């Protein structure tokens, strides 16, 4: 998948004028986000439920190395094979060799964001192995060759007419219809056939339980269950932070995950796998591989300031309420992860230099932090990334800001602690901006702040500031309020 994080502004400017996507995005806060609020109220105490899930995620990350070890032990004991990949390349190699060794020419895939992150589909295609996405949204996005628009609904922005045309063109459907049920049915029949012959099925993992070595998938379509029950070999790919201490913890996270994600109390399918098919069982793969892909997580973990990023459970709630995401959609973020969760994760995985706009295109409104079941403070992380970028932090690939900006802030830094300098600057500013001022308002400031002045005015610096009015008032000249 092509990384386009540096094209944020150009893609966003295009997408913000996409009327169809905008109409859909406009529904996210009042409908999906509201549904989340309603379903949260089914907890006896929603605040405590949220606190508990945050505590679980916090504990999971605090104990991450131990929990991973425990998970590996228990999963291995149950017959699964746990493999570790240090980065995307190693992960791709592992998957490819497992598939090749089994002589498979195609694989079916359940929805998995980490496979997007490591560019698995491209690698499979290059190796002449056909990856077949079986999640309806992923299937459509794959056919259209588009990046995911939303981490939960990757093709949720695609108009139904476009899906009809695609399905007719690709022979997935014969009848000309825009009935969503018929479209879903056509995809279902088409994909069902693939499952009948699979040797290898690939899935992601929603949670890995340390105490039992179980992997859990949460879904609504049943395709992941097929990917796990039909093949001879199941390969499930996860990043280390998916681990939770106990099954009990996992059950609570599922409650929050489903509510935060789709406003459901529970999704249509929740599957728990502890090892492959055992003697006497009818369903399930003969072998189960669990690949744990680090791909930068160890470094995220090692830095105490960034560690909380790993608490994310990929519910997507932060996208649905973000005032920026709900204007521009997922494409401008330029990679697998979008919205606030992508804005905190992508810069750490790709470097602050390549993701400049991701941690700046934020008003610090805090809706993401407020609803996050993982307890992540996204706005504070953005401030941290900005500071690391300014100082040119080497580990995070900070770029340093333009000279003009650095000079402006160093002057600001001098003035803020010196009353005389501050007041002189203010008076100078007032004098210099006089020529732009009319009736107490500025309609432009020459080359300064062109963005602001495009559709907005700004008050001129007051002829009598509060400081000046206060002095006058205390002298008794100004009418005492």
């Amino acid at each position, binding site marked *: 998948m092509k990384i386009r994080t540096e094209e944020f502004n150009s893609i966003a400017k295009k997408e913000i004028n996409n009327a169809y996507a905008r109409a859909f995005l406009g529904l996210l806060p009042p409908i999906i986000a509201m549904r989340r609020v309603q379903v949260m109220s089914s907890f006896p105490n929603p605040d405590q439920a949220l606190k508990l899930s945050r505590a679980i995620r916090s504990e999971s990350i605090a104990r991450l190395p131990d929990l991973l070890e425990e998970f590996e032990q228990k999963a291995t004991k149950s017959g699964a094979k746990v493999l570790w990949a240090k980065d995307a390349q190693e992960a791709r190699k592992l998957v490819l060799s497992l598939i090749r060794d089994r002589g498979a020419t195609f694989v079916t895939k359940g929805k998995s964001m980490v496979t997007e992150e490591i560019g698995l589909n491209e690698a499979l295609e290059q190796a002449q192995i056909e990856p077949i996405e079986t999640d309806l949204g992923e299937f459509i996005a794959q056919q259209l060759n588009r990046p995911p628009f939303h981490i939960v609904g990757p093709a949720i922005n695609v108009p139904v007419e476009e899906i009809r045309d695609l399905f007719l063109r690709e022979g997935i459907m014969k009848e000309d219809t825009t009935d969503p049920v018929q479209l879903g049915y056509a995809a279902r029949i088409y994909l069902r056939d693939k499952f009948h012959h699979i040797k290898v099925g690939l899935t992601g993992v929603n949670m890995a339980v340390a105490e039992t070595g179980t992997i859990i998938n949460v879904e609504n379509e049943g395709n992941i269950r097929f990917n796990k029950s039909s093949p001879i070999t199941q390969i499930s790919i996860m990043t280390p932070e998916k681990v939770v201490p106990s099954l009990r913890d996992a059950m609570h996270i599922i409650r929050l995950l489903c509510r935060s994600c789709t406003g459901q109390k529970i999704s249509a399918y929740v599957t728990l796998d502890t090892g492959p098919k055992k003697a006497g069982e009818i369903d399930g793969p003969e072998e189960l591989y669990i690949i744990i892909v680090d791909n930068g997580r160890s470094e995220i973990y090692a830095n105490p300031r960034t560690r909380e990023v790993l608490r994310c459970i990929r519910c997507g709630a932060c996208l649905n309420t973000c005032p920026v995401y709900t204007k521009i959609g997922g494409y401008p973020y330029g990679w697998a992860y979008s919205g606030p969760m992508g804005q905190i994760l992508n810069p750490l995985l790709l470097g602050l230099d390549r993701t400049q706009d991701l941690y*700046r295109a934020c008003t610090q409104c*805090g809706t993401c932090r407020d609803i996050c079941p993982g307890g992540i403070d996204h706005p504070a992380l953005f*401030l941290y990334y900005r500071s690391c970028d300014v100082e040119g932090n080497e580990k995070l690939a900070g770029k340093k800001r333009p000279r003009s900006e650095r000079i402006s802030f160093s002057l600001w830094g001098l003035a803020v602690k010196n*009353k005389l300098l501050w007041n002189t600057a203010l008076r100078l500013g007032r004098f210099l901006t006089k020529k732009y001022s009319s009736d107490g308002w500025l309609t432009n400031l020459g080359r300064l702040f062109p*963005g602001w002045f495009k559709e*907005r005015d*700004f008050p001129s610096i007051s002829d009598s500031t509060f400081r000046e009015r*206060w002095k006058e008032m205390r002298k008794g000249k100004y009418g005492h309020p």
Partner: protein
Amino acid sequence: MSKVSLFIPCLVDMFAPSIGMATVAILERLGVETVYHDEQTCCGQPALNAGYGNYALEAARRFISIFGDDEVIVSPAGSCVYMIKRYYPELLEDDPLYPMAVDLSSRVYELSQYLVDVLDITDVGAQYEGKVAYHESCHILRGLGISRQPKVLLSKVKGTEIVPLFAAEMCCGFGGEFADRYHYISEEMVKDKVNNFQASGADVLITCEPGCYLNLNGFLHRQQENKKVLHLAQLLAGPEFQGL
């Protein structure tokens, strides 16, 4: 008689001093003595937002040296209050001033919070004939957890009817630098807010945050709309405080 120290942030001082004057007027009307330290400048939020934490730290140190001894600090700018409460202790984590920062943060109040929670006053004797809607500014609602206080104050204003605002808790698109750098996104956000304001049927939209005030009024002024946004203090203080 209570005594409070005023923190009048730079945006109010320079661009909307009437919000500061309105704050003084309300407090004095209630018999609260106000002091204003002339040395105050800025809380440091613009620097912190832009990634210049070292300069924000300077601002924090200075703020503490000026306000450190005050028993109660009141400000009509929720965002700056949030800056002090949320980020000063973090900025000063390794600084000898850290205990002061923590201590100070418990003594800083946003205006409506001070009136309702500390003074236990809900009726400040204000009058306004018309409909008002309330915009839940981000740092006030989600940062400070303040929402009930401004509304209860509004409910006691004579002649005023409070009407609901759709998506009241949605950001207006200010965000400091954001509004310039990503103006094309910010414009869509401010338009939504103004459209919801129009649809609410309110005569004025009330906010407790100067940032939102400047953003929304800046947009309304350019669009030559008759309606305007007032800071809560301006509405409570009376018509002579409702200009810039």
